[in-house]
């Protein structure tokens, strides 16, 4: 029985970006070796790590989605562990998604973000108004006090 999985792996930024293609190819071959079929490929680019891993402070996050037989997952995991280029990896089972569903999800996430930023902006605007009024009052008080 084949299941759908998602693999996210971390490559140290010590490797130049030209080498990434070779590493990608290596992981791809590894998945294919265990008769996995790649359905989706993504990259999150160079990012700062939350904590140093093997003295690396930056890394590239790369992602594959693939179909694989459940029994072969353990072997794939072991092989990924042995790859020197990969600092960390995680394989998670996932529901298969079509390209359309993926786009819809992205849109929904964006909508949530936009709504939130608007709420924050509104709050900040209110704050600004109150502060201005307060400032005027305070200025009046201070000036008035000085004159008397």
């Amino acid at each position, binding site marked *: 029985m084949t299941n759908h999985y998602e693999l*996210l792996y971390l490559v140290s930024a010590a490797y130049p970006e030209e080498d990434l293609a070779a590493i990608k190819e290596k992981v791809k071959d590894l998945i294919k070796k265990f008769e996995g079929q790649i359905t989706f490929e993504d990259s*999150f680019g160079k990012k700062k*790590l*939350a*904590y140093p891993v093997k003295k690396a402070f930056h890394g590239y996050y790369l992602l594959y989605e693939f179909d694989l037989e459940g029994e072969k997952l353990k072997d794939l995991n072991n092989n990924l562990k042995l790859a020197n280029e990969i*600092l*960390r990896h*995680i394989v*998670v089972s996932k529901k298969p998604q079509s390209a359309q569903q993926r786009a819809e999800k992205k849109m929904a996430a964006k909508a949530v973000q936009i709504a939130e930023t608007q709420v924050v902006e509104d709050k900040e605007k209110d704050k600004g108004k109150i502060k201005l009024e307060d400032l005027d009052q305070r200025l009046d008080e201070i000036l008035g006090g000085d004159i008397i």
Partner: protein
Amino acid sequence: MPRPNETKVRPKNCFFCVNNVKEIDYKDINTLRRFISSYAKIVPPKRSGVCSSHQRKLSQAIKRARIMSLLPFTNK
């Protein structure tokens, strides 16, 4: 005299229920960031208002993100 039981109707304030999120993605750090404290601990549902079923998924997602160095285990 025993007090009559007051039933308070609280508004639903689970972030994920409100936004109709069914699965929490461990790669979505900006969302997960709201649910960790300044020491990078997972915020208890009592404080964040997340419902119990989403809290279970959330804690799983945060732990996965920690392993992948997307989120810190701790801040000094």
